[in-house]
């Protein structure tokens, strides 16, 4: 009935791509030992990193594909590109970025956002980061924000000390894959006591078909420091599959505060299989704010290990599963120290036969006294063809832990729609309003620009709901 009015929101905004003919490197499809060695060689890496990659590759070969979660048998590993790079040059000014790549990020509004409200920006295109900047005053305070490859060369000590310590290659098959072929991603170090009051952002763009993007992000927040990092991801629509398999490691030292916000809107042919984990030491706080739109299959469970007394963890995730999409998301919190607290809030929307799954783990170790945790999962089903499941696992080994768990599944009622429509809102707008209201606990945590963008995306997703 009212689909026309949302057409002025342009979904094609993300659906464009550049030719890959002039790429400096584009490996043949498939993963071999030679590919791993070649990546390391191009990057001119130290021997230990090559050995790390090869160890990871061996483990990747041995490790079976997970049989739980989403449908992974359709993912053809041999049909993927494991490394492609338009340029090896990393620019500090947008003027030095090849113009067609700059155009891409212009269309996505990155330089504009940088000017307006970001303290630093990284932009990754296929396998390599092509642009990086950090506000001068932050650099002067000793803040490091660069791409992960550069960090390996320029800050070898701090890099080697932390890299792979939170998510070892042996953690899971996709962590092993990432560790073998990783390229790009962000490296952040915040010195003791430094508070970064504006967000740092990285943007990840897959451009070509069958691309595998394997960025690797490492954030180290030293004692009593504070940082908010945002990542955004998109890709154009192809008829073949792409793979995004990232690893993110966060280390929040005593008293540090780290927030990591993700707004991903992958096209519907991307397998998004990501391992995100954080260590929070005494009195530290880690927050994952995780928005999952798009992709064919997402399997992602941001996790927090609360290692020191009074550490706090918060995971706030939303998932929107449309037609032919499966969002298998959730969170993991492991309480390993006394008086640690955590909260997991999961919101999912399933529509047009889409499927959303909440998969969560709450673990309280022996000796972790006085733990408090709240888990809340709300699912909204837009029609009877869609599906939602909840798999909460609790392993509580201390009697005095205070754990609450709440789960709801809702449908949009005829009466709610009638009520809003009686006030002049079209069916479309009424549906969008209910859905955006449902997501509000998530949206209100985003910087305003992102909240607006997310709401726009939801409206576009809702556009097909009204027949």
């Amino acid at each position, binding site marked *: *009935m*009212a689909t026309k*009015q*949302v057409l*002025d*929101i342009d979904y094609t905004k993300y659906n464009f791509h550049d030719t890959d003919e002039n790429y400096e490197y584009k490996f043949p499809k498939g993963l071999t030992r030679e590919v791993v060695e070649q990546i390391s060689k191009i990057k001119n890496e130290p021997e230990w990193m090559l050995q790390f990659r090869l160890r990871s590759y061996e483990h990747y070969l041995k490790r079976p594909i997970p049989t739980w979660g989403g449908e992974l048998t359709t993912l053809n590993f041999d049909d993927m590109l494991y490394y492609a790079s338009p340029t090896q040059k990393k620019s500090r000014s947008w003027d030095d970025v090849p113009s067609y790549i700059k155009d891409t990020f212009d269309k996505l509004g990155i330089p504009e956002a940088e000017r307006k409200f970001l303290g630093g920006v990284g932009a990754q295109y296929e396998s390599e980061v092509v642009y990086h900047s950090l506000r001068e005053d932050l650099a002067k305070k000793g803040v490091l924000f660069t791409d992960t490859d550069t960090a390996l060369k320029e800050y070898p000590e701090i890099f080697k000390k932390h890299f792979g310590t939170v998510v070892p290659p042996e953690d899971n098959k996709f962590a092993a894959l990432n560790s073998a072929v990783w390229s790009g991603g962000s490296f952040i170090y915040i010195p003791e006591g430094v508070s970064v009051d504006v967000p740092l952002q990285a943007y990840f763009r897959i451009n070509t078909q069958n691309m595998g993007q394997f960025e690797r992000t490492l954030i180290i927040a030293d004692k009593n420091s504070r940082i908010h990092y945002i990542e955004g991801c998109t890709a154009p629509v192809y008829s073949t599959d792409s793979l995004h398999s990232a690893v993110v490691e966060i280390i929040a030292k005593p008293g540090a505060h780290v927030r990591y916000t993700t707004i991903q809107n992958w096209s519907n042919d991307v397998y998004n299989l990501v391992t995100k984990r954080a260590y929070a030491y005494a009195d530290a706080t880690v927050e994952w704010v995780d928005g999952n739109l798009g992709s064919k299959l997402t399997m992602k469970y941001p996790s927090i290990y609360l290692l020191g007394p009074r550490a706090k963890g918060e995971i706030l995730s939303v998932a929107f599963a449309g037609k032919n999409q499966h969002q298998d998301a959730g969170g993991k919190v492991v309480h390993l120290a006394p008086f640690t607290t955590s909260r997991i809030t999961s919101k999912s929307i399933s529509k047009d036969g889409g499927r959303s799954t909440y998969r969560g783990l709450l673990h309280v170790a022996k000796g972790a006294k006085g733990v408090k945790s709240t888990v809340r999962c709300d699912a909204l089903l837009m029609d009877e063809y869609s599906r939602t499941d909840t798999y909460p696992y609790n392993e509580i080994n201390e009697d005095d832990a205070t754990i609450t768990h709440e789960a709801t599944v809702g449908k949009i*009622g*005829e*009466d*709610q729609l*009638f*009520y*809003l*429509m*009686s*006030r*002049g*809102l*079209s*069916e479309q*707008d*009424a549906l*969008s*309003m*209910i859905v*955006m*209201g*449902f*997501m*509000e*606990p998530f*949206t*209100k945590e985003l910087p*305003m620009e992102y*909240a*607006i963008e997310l*709401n*726009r995306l939801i*409206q576009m997703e809702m556009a097909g709901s009204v027949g």
Partner: protein
Amino acid sequence: MPTTLEIKDLHVSIESKQILKGVNLKVAQGEIHAVMGPNGSGKSTLANTLMGHPKYKVDSGDILVNGESIIGMSPDLRARKGLFLAFQYPLEISGVPLAQFLRSAYRAVKGGEDKANSPAVKGGVGKANSPSPTGVGGEMISALAFKKKLEEKLKEVEMDPAFSKRYLNEGFSGGEKKRAEILQMAILEPAIAIMDETDSGLDIDAIRKVAEVVSSMAGPKMGVLLITHYQRILQYLKPQFVHIMVDGRIFQSGGIELAQLLEEKGYEWIEKEAVPTAS
């Protein structure tokens, strides 16, 4: 020309059960009509049918706004024709602040066009970028002007300004919800307001306040179809017309004296009287 709402020989059923069996009624802008009747006589069915609830099926008859049939029209289009329904049981919409909702509704009804990137849409929730229903001459309102208007109306219905930031009806008491309905009506300024038992669940002070607001709006500007079980509110809101509904029909129409008669004799009298005509 004043807007008119005309109901002609309206037959309505829910899930094949016939509820309205031939209702005739005409309300013009500026008039206050009270529809009274015992429980189950079809009053709420009438209200919901007029607004276009999908559960109610019009079997025959017609509903005309300014002579144009609105049967088959969706509720939002009816709202844009100037109809408003104050709900008996207003629904709760989580996560949507009242002020934001009202601004979206205002733009939808008044036809103010708004661009997607309007800085006024905080958080973008409820962004009504719908085209003007009238095509031209839509009323644009700035965020600031709307805020002022809302503050004014909140004061008028004696609601705490804090309500404008709260989620629509969520956690409101029964009385607060009813007041919020009146607030919505005052903002949207409909040509014809249908009020479905707005007085039930309100204390006497609240009833007086509601009646005062409705009366002041009625004047020449708004027609009112007040559906009520009790004549309590009629002490404050003086209708020119009173209709008594029994078993899906208007059994008798008259002036305020009819309500007084009801007060004296009760609904039993009507039901006894109604038997011969209903058979």
